[in-house]
């Protein structure tokens, strides 16, 4: 697939980690009475794959819209490359926001040529062929955009964002409309770009995708950032202990006496919160009571669980 063409990407691998790429300060956006983005602040450093997580309508796209100059902030400020909100900053950023936006009556080459002219790319034909190869659209390069499938349109938009080999890439729901293979390809492409020193900002509500890609995330809801941290810190070291047994009633009584949190998965399986007890300790506790489980295993907490915990605690 298309990421097999990575070798044609000539990217700067000597990125300086830690340099501030984006600084957002108290950003707010109102649409009449609706507060779409509510006083958010965060910083993205060079080389990070920064995820903005949140359910639909949480303000992710609005935030990116402001940062990319198509929406005006109601208050607050942001600065790209420590250079304020200058229009020139956007020439250093490749971005795909929401849907792929191209002229339906034009083919991929002409659509990319317009992007190349906007971004003042010197060898535009070479650049166009390069990105068409990366996103595996070379054979459909002369087909009109309106004849493309949703996945192809999405890939063309990603190709357009790579056209000028920018330092920073901003993708809003980049795997929308892609099949599982396409999703895996995009994920690999993003990881590859990051490994070459690119800074990537990703907005998505697909937690599994974000967990596999991001190094740092902000979790948004109702326009506010609920938490910002590295992925490891957000997920934490907590484990869940999965128990499978036919003596579930007795097990539940024992767990209750020890004040441990648990969730019933089925009649014969429960999941115990591993924060207060390890799997070995739990196994020993049950064995002392004469109960031997059919199966006991631990699972590291997923981003989804952490996300739901954060969202739920924000409801309290």
């Amino acid at each position, binding site marked *: 697939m298309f990421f097999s063409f990575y070798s044609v990407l000539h990217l700067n691998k000597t990125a300086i980690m830690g340099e501030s790429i984006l600084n957002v300060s108290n950003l707010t956006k109102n649409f009449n009475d609706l507060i779409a983005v509510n006083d958010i602040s965060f910083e993205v450093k060079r080389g990070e794959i920064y995820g903005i997580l949140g359910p639909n309508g949480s303000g992710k796209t609005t935030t990116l819209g402001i940062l990319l100059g198509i929406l005006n902030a109601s208050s607050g400020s942001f600065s790209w490359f420590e250079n304020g909100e200058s229009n020139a900053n956007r020439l250093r950023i490749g971005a795909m926001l929401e849907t792929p936006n191209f002229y339906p009556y034009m083919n991929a080459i002409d659509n990319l040529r317009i992007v190349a*002219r906007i971004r003042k790319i010197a060898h535009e034909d070479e650049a166009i062929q390069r990105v068409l190869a990366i996103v595996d659209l070379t054979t459909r390069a002369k087909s009109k955009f309106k004849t493309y499938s949703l996945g192809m349109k999405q890939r063309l938009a990603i190709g357009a964002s790579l056209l000028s080999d920018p330092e920073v890439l901003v993708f809003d729901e980049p795997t929308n409309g892609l099949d599982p293979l396409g999703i895996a390809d995009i994920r690999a492409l993003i990881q590859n770009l990051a490994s070459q020193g690119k800074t990537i900002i990703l907005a998505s509500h697909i937690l599994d995708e974000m967990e596999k890609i991001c190094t740092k995330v902000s979790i948004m809801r109702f326009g506010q950032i609920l938490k910002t941290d590295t992925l490891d810190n957000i997920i934490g070291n907590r484990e869940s202990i999965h128990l499978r047994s036919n003596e579930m009633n007795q097990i539940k009584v024992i767990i209750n006496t020890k004040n441990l949190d648990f969730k019933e998965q089925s009649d014969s399986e429960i999941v115990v919160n591993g924060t207060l007890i390890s799997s070995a300790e739990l196994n020993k506790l049950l064995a002392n009571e004469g109960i031997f489980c059919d199966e006991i295993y631990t699972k590291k907490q997923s981003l989804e669980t952490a996300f739901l915990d954060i969202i739920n605690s924000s409801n309290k």
Partner: protein
Amino acid sequence: MRQLISIEWIKLKKLSAFTWIILLYMILLPLWMWVMNLWFGSINQQIAIMPDTKTLWSFPTVWRFVTYSGSYFNLFLSVLIVVLTTNEFSSRTMRQHVIDGLTKRQVILSKFLVILGISIFVTFYAFLIGLIFGLTQSAKIDLYSNIHYVGLFFVQSLCYFSFAFLLSILIKRSALSLIIFYGVIILEFIVSFFIPQIVYAFFPFKNFAKLTPIPFLEQLVVGMEADMGEKIIQFDTWQVVSISLFFMMLFYSISYWRLKKGDL
């Protein structure tokens, strides 16, 4: 500037609506002049104040005739401006251009360049038609008298197209923009019956239309003044041009303000 022109040209040359509307203009303008000729002929039979309509095709009247006939096409070609501008909203390419690095000022400038290019083309074509008829139909070749009407026709094109552009920016939908475009022109005409003529003389479409007045206007005005028993208010050409250019600037300023202050 060259960058913006090259970007707009890629869009235009691939848009079939652009090709068809321009071709239609090229075919219909001479045909429309023939229709106008018949109309003037019929007026002449009723009011014997105008010279023979044969002079319409000859220098120097042909410049007034071709620009007056062509002025109707400025209204027709405004459809093209609306289509070109609202397309950018419907395919969300205007916002993508800003994301990709164009400034909102460049977005406005690029569309102004398109309007300028189309105005130059339609004016040049009208000039060519006038020249061909003038050279083949005139007993005496007087190329330069009245040729300034070609320049005024160019200003008129710019003004009508600028208004079409403004509505497209404000409304963002082609059908509604066109309805309002023609609606406002008709409304201004209706309003003219209820307001003092000195006020109406400053209205935009009144002035745009006066840039390319009906041939034999002077004779018609004298006739009408005689009928009405009062003097008709007439601005001189430079006053009409100044008022028209003022409105054109106003349309672009509002468009720019709307893009700058609003969300894409």
